[in-house]
């Protein structure tokens, strides 16, 4: 029952979706809220479109806070780990392999802070 119901429901929803008026302040293409599906980071209010793996769906995610894992800004514009919040730098080594595979990971640090890691 539920198995049959679900695809039907989904189909109806997909047909309905374009007809639903988007409330002001958010959208379907840009200006997306945290948790909404995205393809590229420019679509997100937070400025980071993140996915878990290469084949998983990407969602808008808040940027990384200090001491959280991050990755450098990449031309792919989709991330496994979000770039840092403003004022912070992602303390990662840039490698050729890393920039191709989008895995230049590091930790967000405050460049002005005296207790920084290195």
């Amino acid at each position: 029952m539920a198995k049959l119901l679900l695809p039907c429901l989904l189909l109806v929803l997909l047909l309905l979706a374009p007809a639903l008026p988007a409330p002001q302040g958010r959208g379907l293409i840009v200006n997306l809220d945290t948790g909404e599906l995205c393809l590229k980071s420019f679509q997100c209010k937070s400025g980071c479109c993140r996915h878990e793996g290469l084949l998983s769906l990407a969602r808008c995610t808040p940027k990384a806070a200090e001491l959280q894992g991050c990755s450098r800004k990449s031309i792919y514009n989709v991330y496994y780990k979000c770039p840092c919040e403003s004022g912070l730098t992602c303390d990662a080594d840039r490698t050729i392999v890393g920039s191709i595979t989008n895995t230049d990971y590091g930790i967000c640090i405050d460049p002005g802070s005296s207790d920084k890691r290195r």
Partner: protein
Amino acid sequence: MFGIWILAALLLSIAEGEEVCYDRLGCFSDDVPWSGTIERPIYKLPWSPEKIDVQFLLYTRENPVVFQEISATDNSTITYSNFKTSRKTRFIIHGFIDNGEENWLSELCDRMLSVEDVNCICVNWKKGARCQYTQASNNIRVVGAEVAYLVNVLQTQYKYSPADVHIIGHSLGAHAAGEAGKRHPGIGRITGLDPAQPYFQDTPIEVRLDKSDAEFVDVIHTDSAPMIPYLGFGMSTPIGHLDFYPNGGKEMPGCAKNAISQIVDLDGIWEGTRDFVACNHLRSYKYYSDSIIYPTGFLGYISTSYDTFEEGSGFPCPAEGCPNMGHYADKFKGKITNDITKLYLNTGEARDFALWRYKVTVTLSGKRKVRGYVNVALYGSEGNTRQHQITEGTLQPDNTYTSFLDAEVDIGTLTKVKFLWNNNWINPTLPKLGAAVITVQPGENGQVYRFCGSETVREEVLQTLTAC
């Protein structure tokens, strides 16, 4: 002629009211206030206990994954189960259309078992819940009667005190819990997770959940907008000893996503579809579930409305503390003085929902006023927060800006804060701005922390302030 007789017979039966009686559970009538009122116009009698087929699915620390089914009519199922009279018992009752074997009920049990030794009983009445709404809202009377009957068996035959019983009900299940409490006085606690609004709001207390149904009744309201036209499924009126209205009780953050993002959920299509239909309504049990593992992350602030709460009413917590929304609400039992206690708080937009509230006051320093926004991040012994915006607009040096900040992590004892400002366009005069003093007050204990800074910084540069 014959038709007129049938019509007359029908009218007569409606006017007089009917009654059904079932052995063990007693009689149920469709008289006022059960039917025939403005709130409940359609006459319906509850189905028979056999048709509804209420099942009690027991989870304990001995069997946390696979349930044991117990029955009040067959004592051997209780005797030979892992039910122990030395433990508290928590019932979980689902609502309309839902199913007692649905993941959220067993996950709730699982989380409870991780923090306490408890008999966790999921009440499955899916056969009575998957029908017309008017029928289901009458079937809950039988569900409540069945729970009361089991509690009665436990009391008479196992010397189990009803004060150790806690019934958690979601939506229609909340009113089923109310029915059980009404039939068996002395039940310790009932938690109403967004009690259903249609057919229950504004009805007399014997029809719905009410604070008279148990020694302690706490309610979480997450979908309390009116049914017409906003499709709110939950009650808005306060009905318990403590009534929590997270995020104002009407619109939950994370529930306004576009259709595809909502359905294609992190927790799968089924969870996403449920949220698409009733996201706000289902948030109530998600908050409850998270409150089990984050006891301090859901403090409710006493206020008259959500707007006054946002302005700072009820902040910080009074000397006796703030009531915890969710699992630990009963800590506040016995401290209730008011007839109605409305509590407000904010929650996150996705799991984990817990937030810790702070009042932040920033005094700016610098030479000239600029336009832009100010962000503050808090650092403590247990971690640090993201940057939270305190103010936006004209930033005047020596002025003070106050705002509330809901931190997404429990940072422990505050050690320092960081200040950052920015305007969204490039200013060739390279203005500098700083924070002279930032005071931070956690809502939990109200202790004021003071941090000072002497420098000024350019935009997008973090300024660290230390205790002073």
